[in-house]
């Protein structure tokens, strides 16, 4: 078999990897803002829940989380009489998104805390509510500071999608494994998908740079 014949199944897998990356990055971004802001909340219940979420998902291994959602959650569901059997795609997106979201939440928290106190004082002096100060003053200045870290996390997330192949999700790593089983041509197959992952990471990095530049305009004038 010529190496070009490996391409159709691999490209099919690469598309699944792209979808998985996009969905889980969006879920991760939502979690990052929700729990990053939640950790700064004065409401102890929201704050406590955010801290527990962040510690659990940062403190344990992603593969453990993935296996837990896929293998253990259905059993937990049976115990309380609910069907929690997730299809591999749902388990994959959920595990990847929740995991990267916990890392992102720390980035969001750090960036919001790095906004100078004088900005909040000025917002207060102008009679902004706490909500307005957060959404209109703090976040527009904090988001550009988050972008470099978010870029790294997005690439991290792309790499992590390969683990979803271990719960029989047909992504690039999974297709590569199939092609290798069929042809026994490990060197070519794995070299090809390493390059494909590298290419996707470079494209993702470029996209995140563009995003970084476009939100850079929100940065306030530096004194």
């Amino acid at each position, binding site marked *: 078999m010529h190496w070009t014949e490996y391409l159709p199944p691999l490209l099919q897998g690469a598309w699944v990897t792209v979808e998985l990356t996009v969905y889980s990055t969006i879920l991760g971004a939502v979690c990052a803002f929700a729990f990053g802001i939640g950790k700064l909340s004065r409401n102890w219940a929201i704050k406590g829940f955010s801290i527990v979420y962040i510690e659990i998902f940062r403190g344990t291994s992603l593969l453990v989380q993935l*296996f837990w959602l896929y293998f253990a959650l259905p059993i937990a569901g049976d115990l309380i009489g609910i069907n929690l059997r997730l299809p591999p795609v749902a388990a994959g997106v959920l595990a990847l998104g929740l995991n990267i979201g916990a890392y992102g939440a720390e980035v969001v928290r750090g960036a919001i805390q790095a906004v100078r106190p004088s900005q909040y004082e000025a917002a207060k002096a102008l009679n902004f509510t706490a909500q307005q100060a957060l959404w209109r003053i703090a976040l527009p200045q904090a988001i550009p500071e988050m972008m470099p870290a978010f870029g790294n996390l997005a690439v991290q997330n792309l790499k992590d999608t390969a683990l979803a192949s271990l719960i029989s999700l047909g992504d690039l790593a999974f297709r590569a494994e199939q092609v290798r089983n069929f042809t026994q041509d490990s060197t070519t197959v794995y070299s090809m998908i390493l390059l494909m992952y590298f290419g996707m990471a470079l494209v993702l990095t470029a996209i995140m740079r563009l995003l970084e530049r476009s939100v850079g305009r929100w940065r306030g004038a530096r004194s």
Partner: protein
Amino acid sequence: MLFGFHWDTGHGELVFAWSILPMLLRGLVVTIEASIVGFFIALVIGLIFAVLKDVPLKIISYPAYVITEFFRDTPLLVQLFFLYYVLPDYGIILPAFLTGALALGIQYSAYTAEVYRAGIEAVPKGQHEAAKALDLTASLTFTHIVLPQAVPRVVPAMGNYLVSISKDVPVLSVVTVLEMLNVAKIIGDQTFDYLVPLSMVGGLYLILTIVASAAVRWVDAKLPKTGVPMR
């Protein structure tokens, strides 16, 4: 039965959990061993890359830059499969544990190389000038002036990567390394109860990372912050 221990599925979840704890702890030991071996490989390869990236010749520094970028941007799982299936084709047959540790070391060398560079660059320029004024050779300057000041700066970042590596060790289960997650998976496959072993692995990981992070902070607090004290 695993490692000579028997699980007890007949007397409720708690008895079952207690009966499999010794097996999971055996797995935990392998997890820690793999983390440490992988970490040392990453420290060595990372230092080589850090030096190569600093070479003034573009023909050496540029390939080193591209290779570390490649190591950083490709999944650990695929790198591991590559080493595990491709190396034997070229006559290099390593045990699964070493292949796994090597994959961890290669992936993280891209990160440690950056840490070394940041640490070395953070040493003030005046230190180099002073060393030159004292007529120290380049190698003496590096080993006696730059390194002692760079090391305290890189220790916390390196420690964090050690913790990260320990969280990536479960990937090694795909090449049959019996680390903690693999042990839990085997117990689940045999007893049809994944909930207890996988939840216990999560709990043990939480303990491991909390203790390790506290250790990193403790070591960091013990290190001198600016330069090294005179003796």
